[in-house]
């Protein structure tokens, strides 16, 4: 009934969707699983009209359609329940449900609130939610808001003829067990009116609810399985793809770290709702990887080490000195370097050239009484461009114009050259091509040889396993399990996944 045929989508430097064939039958619940960055969200955006495919087509009942925007998709029966919720918190429930479609209740410019509330009640009944439609949305629980969001999407069926396809993006991520059951029951009941596409990283839930499951990897659909033929292991295997290539992650260059010395230690450190009672030690030459799902608290831990977040309790010790004041300036001074996930926003300053970026964190080394010594900066930048093989016409080139891999090298050069010996890497290979990724892996090994301790949040689980000496699994801000990552006895993906979700 609804289908994509041979859809391709390109972004600058990335082939985001590769010949994707995808279809939904009437009344069917289709699951979509894949790792972060596998292309799930791009695919969803194509389905609900936020992106237009670069090749291939969208078909409804074998007729080709093209959506310029989500509203057009909606008019063709495609609705989306967003993970982060699209409701406006300070409006009432009914105003949210009919946002953008209030016209039907307006006579001579005046809103007929009774009819409005009546209609909203009818929509809420569809999701079995018994609340006053005049309630301010922010007063509802998260689960209730999710149902209101669903009710809002279901108003599409009153506006259009034909079938409905509803996308659910990670709808269960913050729901309690019984709330999930409730939602699933509701979705199953609604299949009489609509088909669903259910996207989640919780494989067990996808298996539970879906009639058919699409598995995505690197922008392509790698498998489609029916509910009855499902095998969790094989899905996980396909999600993650190829066997771990030890050569790729430079495992032969992984040497034991110096366990007698401690660079950084966390002792029962907690920060609000972000993470709780985290303890670990980082040693020179060690790659310690924090593994967990999105929002499990990994990044907050990195930002605490750097000084951008101050913990509520616990002791952070860097090089045998307890940290009392958490500022980024202090972090740099203590020898901590931070390679953030958002390379273009937090990593480099676009509009500043290569040498200005490299010395930004260490201007005191290139100035006298506040006056910059630019020729020193330039010579220094040329040295590091040479050393890391950064592809740039010169040190005067705007960093914003470099490729992702070279930008990342500039960020790494900034910290390494400044003598940082605790390096925090947040998704250091995100969005890089294979060659650039290998360069980053090579640099990680070199830093370890030089006695640097690395705290890593990896882009994929394979990367985490391949690179790490130690892996800590974190779930919902709490420590789950520690794995030893010595080559030969590295944990498997399934070991990790088991504790993550």
């Amino acid at each position: 009934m609804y289908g994509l045929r041979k859809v391709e989508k390109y972004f600058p430097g990335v082939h985001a969707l590769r010949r994707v064939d995808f279809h939904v039958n009437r009344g069917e619940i289709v699951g979509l699983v894949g790792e972060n960055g596998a292309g799930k969200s791009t695919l969803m955006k194509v389905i609900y009209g936020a992106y237009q495919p670069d090749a291939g087509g969208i078909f409804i009942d074998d007729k080709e359609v093209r959506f310029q925007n989500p509203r057009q998709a909606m008019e063709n029966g495609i609705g989306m329940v967003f993970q982060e919720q699209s409701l406006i918190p300070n409006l009432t429930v009914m105003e949210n449900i009919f946002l953008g479609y209030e016209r039907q209740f307006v006579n001579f410019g005046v809103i007929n609130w009774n009819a409005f509330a009546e209609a909203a009640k009818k929509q809420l009944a569809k999701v079995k939610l018994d609340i006053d439609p005049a309630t301010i949305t922010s007063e509802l629980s998260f689960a209730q808001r999710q149902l209101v969001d669903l009710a809002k999407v279901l108003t599409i069926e009153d506006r259009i003829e034909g079938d409905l396809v509803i996308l659910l993006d990670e709808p269960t991520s913050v729901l309690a067990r019984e709330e999930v059951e409730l939602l699933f029951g509701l979705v199953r009941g609604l299949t009489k009116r609509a088909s669903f596409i259910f996207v989640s990283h919780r494989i067990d839930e996808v298996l539970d609810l879906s009639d058919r499951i699409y598995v995505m990897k690197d922008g392509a659909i790698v498998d489609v399985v029916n509910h009855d033929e499902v095998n969790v292991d094989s899905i996980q295997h396909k999600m993650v793809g190829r066997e771990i290539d030890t050569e790729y992650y430079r495992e032969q260059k992984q040497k034991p770290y110096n366990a007698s010395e401690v660079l950084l230690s966390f002792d029962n450190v907690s920060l609000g709702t972000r993470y709780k009672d985290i303890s670990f030690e980082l040693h020179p030459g060690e790659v310690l990887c924090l593994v967990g799902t999105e929002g499990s608290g990994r990044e907050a831990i990195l930002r605490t080490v750097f000084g951008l977040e101050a913990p509520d309790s616990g002791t952070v010790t860097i090089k045998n000195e307890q940290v009392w004041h958490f500022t980024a300036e202090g972090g740099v001074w203590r020898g901590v370097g931070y390679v953030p996930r958002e390379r273009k926003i937090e990593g480099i300053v676009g509009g500043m050239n290569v040498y200005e970026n490299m010395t930004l964190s260490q201007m005191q080394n290139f100035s006298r009484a506040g006056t910059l010594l630019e020729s020193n900066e330039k010579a220094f930048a040329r040295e590091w461009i040479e050393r890391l093989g950064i592809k740039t016409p010169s040190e005067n080139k705007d960093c914003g114009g470099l490729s992702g891999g070279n930008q990342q090298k500039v960020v790494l050069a900034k910290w390494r050259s400044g003598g940082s010996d605790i390096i925090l890497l947040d998704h250091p290979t995100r969005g890089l091509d294979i060659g650039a990724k290998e360069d980053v892996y090579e640099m990680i090994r070199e830093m370890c040889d030089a006695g640097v301790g690395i705290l890593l949040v990896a882009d994929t689980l394979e990367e985490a396993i391949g690179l790490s000496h130690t892996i800590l699994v974190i779930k919902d801000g709490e420590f789950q399990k520690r794995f030893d990552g010595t080559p030969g006895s590295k944990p498997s993906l399934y070991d990790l996944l088991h504790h993550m979700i």
Partner: protein
Amino acid sequence: MNLERIKPHFPWLTLLALALLVGIANPSFLVPSSLLSLVADIVPLFIMALGMTFAIYIGGIDLSVQQLANMVTVIATVYLAQFGASVAVICILAGLLFGAVSGYVTNRLYVPSFVSTLAMGFIALSVAKYLSGQRALYMDATLRDANFGWMFGNTAGVPHELVIAVFLLALAWFLQKKTTFGRALKAIGSGEPAAVASGLNVVRVKVLAFAVSGAFAAIAGLMFSVKLSGGDANLANGFLLLAIVAVLVGGTPLTGGVGGVINTAVGTLIVMVIRAAMVYVEISATQQQMIFGVVLIIAIALTIDRSKMQIVK
């Protein structure tokens, strides 16, 4: 050649074109001596715009400069007799202090700079009214000439105001281009999150930027006061719009990060030419503000970096 590559050259090309246009219509405009006196005339405005450049360069704005200058005219006039030439130090410190408070309010209390500086401007205005007793005050001519007479006058045909302007421009350029402070300003204007993630003390740098803006506004006020030989809480009115126009027409966008003090010099000259042209075609003073208002909107729309803005309110 595409538009993005010509864009940085827009300001001086505009200046050249406008100057030629006015020169053709009114050849006396291009006579060196009359040009020099026009330029000398606009120096207080230029100094104010120079300071404002620092606030705009980091992506903020300083709406207090006109009121700071007003306040300084009063301070200078009231305390000249008591402190002599060192009244200049008091004036500049007052400007620094007001600017620093604006910066602190903006960065520590998270009040957007256009509101915090507007509020600080009203406070400065109040101080000016209080100190002056709401009257126009006059400087003692002998004292003025003895202490600040050097500001005005001619040496070998070069007006002294111009020398002061060039000196301050060189100072501002040095600050912006050659110091760690200037580099930090650029990083903050171009990409503040990356500046934070590089461990820069972003708050301190931003507070300093507003302090510099305040100090330059104070110098502008002092010059104006000496020039007009008096002080009044409304003396510098009309400067604010022109100062903003000068910075933006010069090519420093409201979003910050590019442009700088040299651009502001060009922008101020553009303002001067437009003003001369309006006098020539006999547009009355009341209507001039209208023209500058329109120029301001056009300049903002042309220079602003929309990729840095998600929402406009």
